[in-house]
């Protein structure tokens, strides 16, 4: 955090100044470790075992916050009799479909619950024909729960004593029993006394009076089991009562100014704004049947119709009527995974012919960078919008494949447009930061030359397309011609008015007045809203994201700075900061409480709860939506109002996390005979060959990471001299022991090799890298900052050349944080010799097109 979010780290220092203990778990001793009380070095890719060990410690010692657990989690829920855990099936859960590499989650459900078909309402014939069940799961459905859990309904059986053998608590206890300190040492390389110390610190700092927070970043997500990493932390934090309370939580430290915003208002294939899923192809699908399948009965997702109809009204205005299902049919449909790496395959196959890159540099920033470039090389046309001539714009001229002669410039037919982009000072708009806070930045100056904002580009591109298609009677052009696309423009460059777009996102009522909360949205077409969770950002006709009341003039929650979705609440699920009766668990940690006099929830934060629903509220029979939740159902976006220690639905690779080895690991899994996530997403392709597990040819583990001085793939730092000079070139970090073993010299060159290719880096030998003892043998890890590429002021090979396309089945995020590799002294071969060099490695490791494809 000190490395990548230094300004956020000031709050960690504030906490330390107040006596907080800081534990840093990272393979490397970083600038964060330097300031931590305890640094735990562990093997990259072993966090589920580590966190699972913590969960086991809590359960074995009954160190959970029992009142919280009983009131706010699903610990008491009883799971179906036919559920089989990894304990029973040696590492897999019941429902595994080995043919299609998927799970049927039906057996994971609660006893008594209805089991929703994954594909929505019956359409069996279609499903049979297309295996839609599998493809829908492929469609990253889990992310549709970015603002809440999956659907569960029915009469759920519970046992408040937590003694029922099939209650969640007991299942959890059995499931995690094998995650002992010894096992943690075997898997993670963490000595038992260090691990026990972490256990004691975490449990001692959790409970009624104290809270523990977890902060993570892509070190947890970029794995074939990334979602389950975070699930494990969720289980731990829920058991310890650390969710919904000040100083608690699991905080995603996101690395881009609006990466949260780009999932809220998603440029993601599987989502519509506000985490509404993109419709999947079904026969005779209607708006009604879609909502039936995707919405939930209880909780705020019960109002999905209002959200979706308001969105369709925002997009197609007058053309969206009750008669035409509010133009629901205008939405294109998914038939499986269409995520970015699938798109690359589609490019190489020739299906996808045109590609827009807007502020993204996959030629060095995406996994298996060669595959990304070969995808681009197969395009008809490519549009690159960025500040500078990034690698994704110039691969046809000077990319690595030109050097290896895999591509020849004069034989490559891709048409490339490079359009310079405007910077944040040259346009107005909002960023959504890592804590869901929308903050407006105002245009300070006009962009120079032909630089333009992406708002300008998208608006004017749409305008031109609409003009060119005007008069078309082809039904395929209706959605584009009926689109509401009349934003006011200003200035000599005709920049669209970003605030007008924000107004549309916020939505308005039938009279055109801005809405102030998503609770005002209607499903009858009388309201519009471009993103329901952002509804209220323009409440009272005021740009709430542009509020800038100094923090010195308001309380610590600072509600009048910017605007957080939903409803400007700063801590989600903050009902859980009070006990079931509505009293804060502790005065020190008071955030929200029930005020019986005014019959309202009160406190410094905006309640994440119906503000007048008393703690003793019991829903009426047959109630739906939020009204169906009890006064103690703190987790209002969940269908049952509970924090899920066990996920009966919604996570495609299991209701509980289990430690699986990384796809490419030098070790076998000591916990189960199932080596890796059985339903991890693999891609069989000649440029994406995998390494076999435990291969002595690739005995080391490498992990990629960021440095304080650079930003992601370097597009915003390698061209900035003041930053480039601070970290002038690509390097790798290795321990003195590894350096001795492999003959690496400090400041010399090293070549790091995977089954895909080899990269060269300068060597930094440092004791901050430590060898670990894993399964009785010494493991060396290699640190690779991934900021570089051949262009720009500061240059170097791209670490992403090494990474394979192998993905988490929930999110389709690649595993680039734990890769097996080899390292040797000296520079890598140049030109075609590089290809031969890597081929030789593949031969030695016995790699074929089937390697790594097993379940």
């Amino acid at each position: 955090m000190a490395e990548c979010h230094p300004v956020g780290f000031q709050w960690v220092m504030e906490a330390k100044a107040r006596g907080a203990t800081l534990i840093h778990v990272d393979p490397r001793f970083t600038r964060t470790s330097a300031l931590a009380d305890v640094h735990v070095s562990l093997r990259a890719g072993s966090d589920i075992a580590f966190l699972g060990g913590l969960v086991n410690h809590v359960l074995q010692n009954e160190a959970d916050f029992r009142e919280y657990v009983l009131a706010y989690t699903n610990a008491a829920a009883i799971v179906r009799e036919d559920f089989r855990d990894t304990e029973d099936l040696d590492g897999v859960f019941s429902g595994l479909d080995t043919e299609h590499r998927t799970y049927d989650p039906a057996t994971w459900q609660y006893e008594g619950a209805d089991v929703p078909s994954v594909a929505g309402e019956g359409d069996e014939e279609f499903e049979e024909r297309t295996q839609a069940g599998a493809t829908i799961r492929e469609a990253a459905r889990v992310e549709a729960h970015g603002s809440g859990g999956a659907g569960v309904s029915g009469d759920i059986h519970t046992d408040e004593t937590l003694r029922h053998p099939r209650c969640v608590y007991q299942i959890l206890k059995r499931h995690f029993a094998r995650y002992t300190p010894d096992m943690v040492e075997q898997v993670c390389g963490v000595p038992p006394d260090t691990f026990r110390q972490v256990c004691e610190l975490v449990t001692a700092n959790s409970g009624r009076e104290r809270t523990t927070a977890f902060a993570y970043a892509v070190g947890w997500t970029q794995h074939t089991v990334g979602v389950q990493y975070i699930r494990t932390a969720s289980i731990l934090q829920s058991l310890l009562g650390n969710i919904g309370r000040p100083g608690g939580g699991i905080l995603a430290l996101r690395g881009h100014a609006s990466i949260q915003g780009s999932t809220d208002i998603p440029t993601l294939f599987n989502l519509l704004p506000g985490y509404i899923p993109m419709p999947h192809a079904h026969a005779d699908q209607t708006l009604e049947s879609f909502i039936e399948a995707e919405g939930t009965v209880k909780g705020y997702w019960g109002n999905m119709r209002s959200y979706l109809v308001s969105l369709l009204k925002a997009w197609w205005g007058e053309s969206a009527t009750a008669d035409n299902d509010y133009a629901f049919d205008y939405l294109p449909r998914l038939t499986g995974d269409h995520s970015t790496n699938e798109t690359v395959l589609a490019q190489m196959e020739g299906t996808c012919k045109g590609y827009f890159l807007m502020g993204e540099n996959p030629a060095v920033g995406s996994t298996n960078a060669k595959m990304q470039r070969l995808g681009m090389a197969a395009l008809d046309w490519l549009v690159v919008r960025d500040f500078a001539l990034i690698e994704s714009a110039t691969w046809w001229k000077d990319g690595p494949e030109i050097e290896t002669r895999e591509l020849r410039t004069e034989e490559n037919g891709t048409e490339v447009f490079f359009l310079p982009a405007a910077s944040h000072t040259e346009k107005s708009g909002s960023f959504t930061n890592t804590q869901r806070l929308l903050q407006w930045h105002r245009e300070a100056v006009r962009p120079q030359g032909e630089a333009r904002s992406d708002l300008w580009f998208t608006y004017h591109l749409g305008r031109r397309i609409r003009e060119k298609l005007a008069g078309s009677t082809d039904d395929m052009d209706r959605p584009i011609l009926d689109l509401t696309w009349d934003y006011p423009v200003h200035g000599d460059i005709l920049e669209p008015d970003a605030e007008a777009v924000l107004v549309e996102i916020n939505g308005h009522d039938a009279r055109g007045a801005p809405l102030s909360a998503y609770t005002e949205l209607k499903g009858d077409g009388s309201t519009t809203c471009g993103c329901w969770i952002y509804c209220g950002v323009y409440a009272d006709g005021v740009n709430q994201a542009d509020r800038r009341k100094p923090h010195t003039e308001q309380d610590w929650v600072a509600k009048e700075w910017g605007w957080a979705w939903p409803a400007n609440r700063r801590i989600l699920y903050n009902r859980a900061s009070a006990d079931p009766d509505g009293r804060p668990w502790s005065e020190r940690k008071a955030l929200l409480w029930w005020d019986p006099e005014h019959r309202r929830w009160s406190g410094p934060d905006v309640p994440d709860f119906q503000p007048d629903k008393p703690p003793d509220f019991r829903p009426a029979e047959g109630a739906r939506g939020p009204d169906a939740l009890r006064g103690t159902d703190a987790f209002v976006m969940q269908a049952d109002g509970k924090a899920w220690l066990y996920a009966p639905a919604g996570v495609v690779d299991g209701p509980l996390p289990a430690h699986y080895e990384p796809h490419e690991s030098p070790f076998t899994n000591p916990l189960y005979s199932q080596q890796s996530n059985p339903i991890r997403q693999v891609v069989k392709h000649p440029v994406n060959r995998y390494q076999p597990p435990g291969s002595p040819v690739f005995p080391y583990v490498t992990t990629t990471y960021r440095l304080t001085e650079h930003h992601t793939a370097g597009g915003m730092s390698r061209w900035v001299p003041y930053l480039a000079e601070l970290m002038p070139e690509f390097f790798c970090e290795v321990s003195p022991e590894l350096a001795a073993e492999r003959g690496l010299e400090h400041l010399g060159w090293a070549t790091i090799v995977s089954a895909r290719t080899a990269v060269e880096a300068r060597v930094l030998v440092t004791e901050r890298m430590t060898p670990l003892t894993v399964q009785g043998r010494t493991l060396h890890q290699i640190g690779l900052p991934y900021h570089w590429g051949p262009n720009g002021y500061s240059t170097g090979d791209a670490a992403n050349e090494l990474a394979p396309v192998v993905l988490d089945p929930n999110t389709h995020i690649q595993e680039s944080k734990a890769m097996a590799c080899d390292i040797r002294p000296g520079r890598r071969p140049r030109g075609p010799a590089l290809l031969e060099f890597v081929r030789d490695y593949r031969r030695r490791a016995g790699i074929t097109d089937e390697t790594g494809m097993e379940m």
Partner: protein
Amino acid sequence: MGRPRDALTGVAAGRRRRRGRGEQPVVPDAQFTSYYGRPVVKRPVWRTLDIAGYLFVGGLAGSSSVLAAGAHFTDRPTLARAGKITAAGGVVVAAVLLVHDLGRPERFVNMLRVFKPTSPMSVGSWLLSGYGPAAGLAAVSAVTGRLPRLGTLATVGAGLIGPTITTYTAALISDTAVPAWHGGHREMPYVFAGSGASAAGGLGLLAAPVWENTPARRMALMGGIVELAAYRLMEHRLGMVAEPYRTGTAGWLVRASEALTVAGLAGAVLGRRNRLVCAVSGGALVSASAFMRFGIFKAGVASAEDPKYTVGPQRERLNARDGSGIGRV
């Protein structure tokens, strides 16, 4: 601004084994410690030819003015004229060297913007601006024979300011953090005065006929002996910081200088009746002076480049002062 920070890393929790509170052992370092061997002080950015050259030329000129004045009043016209011309030529060369070494030569007049007794360079600039015209006038008068009274006055002036030109440069280089210079600040003026005198004498021997060169020989003798003695004293006082004077280019230059001085003096004394021997001896002395200045310059630069010469004496001083210092050197 804010409050005092109390974020004490590792205190709230952390390693419990090994040692208890307040018992952190200080690991004694067997070796000298520095930041990756980087110099602590900056080496002078002055160009060797410019500034070591200036130290030499200024010393020669200033001392020559003294000798010239003496010769002037004791009726040794050739010696006097040679001294005056050397002084005037020297001061012109010196000024050119000084201006040439400036980062912004066009701003050389800024040297007279302030008068700062705390800055030997400022004092030197003012001295030079008095000495330059005097030396010039004296020389012009001597060569042309015109304005004899003014010439005499200028000769006296130059003769009186000249010595300061010779010795202020010792203060100039000593008044720095360069260990090999600053550490020798007491002896350096005598080294410079001696070296200047020896050079001026040498030049006199070179220029004057045998019947006029007695003052030059005496000047050279006195200068050379003082120079050698003061230098030895300085070396002794510097202790380990004298190392740069003995090693590398500086060591070679200083040894050559000493040898040339001894040889020059011997020649000047033993061959005093032979014009050629006198001239060669004079040349040796002039070169010796130049070698000495270049050697001192180089030694200073070398001492600044190695942090041990900065840290070592300071650490010793600290240890001696409070006795409790942790031995690092």
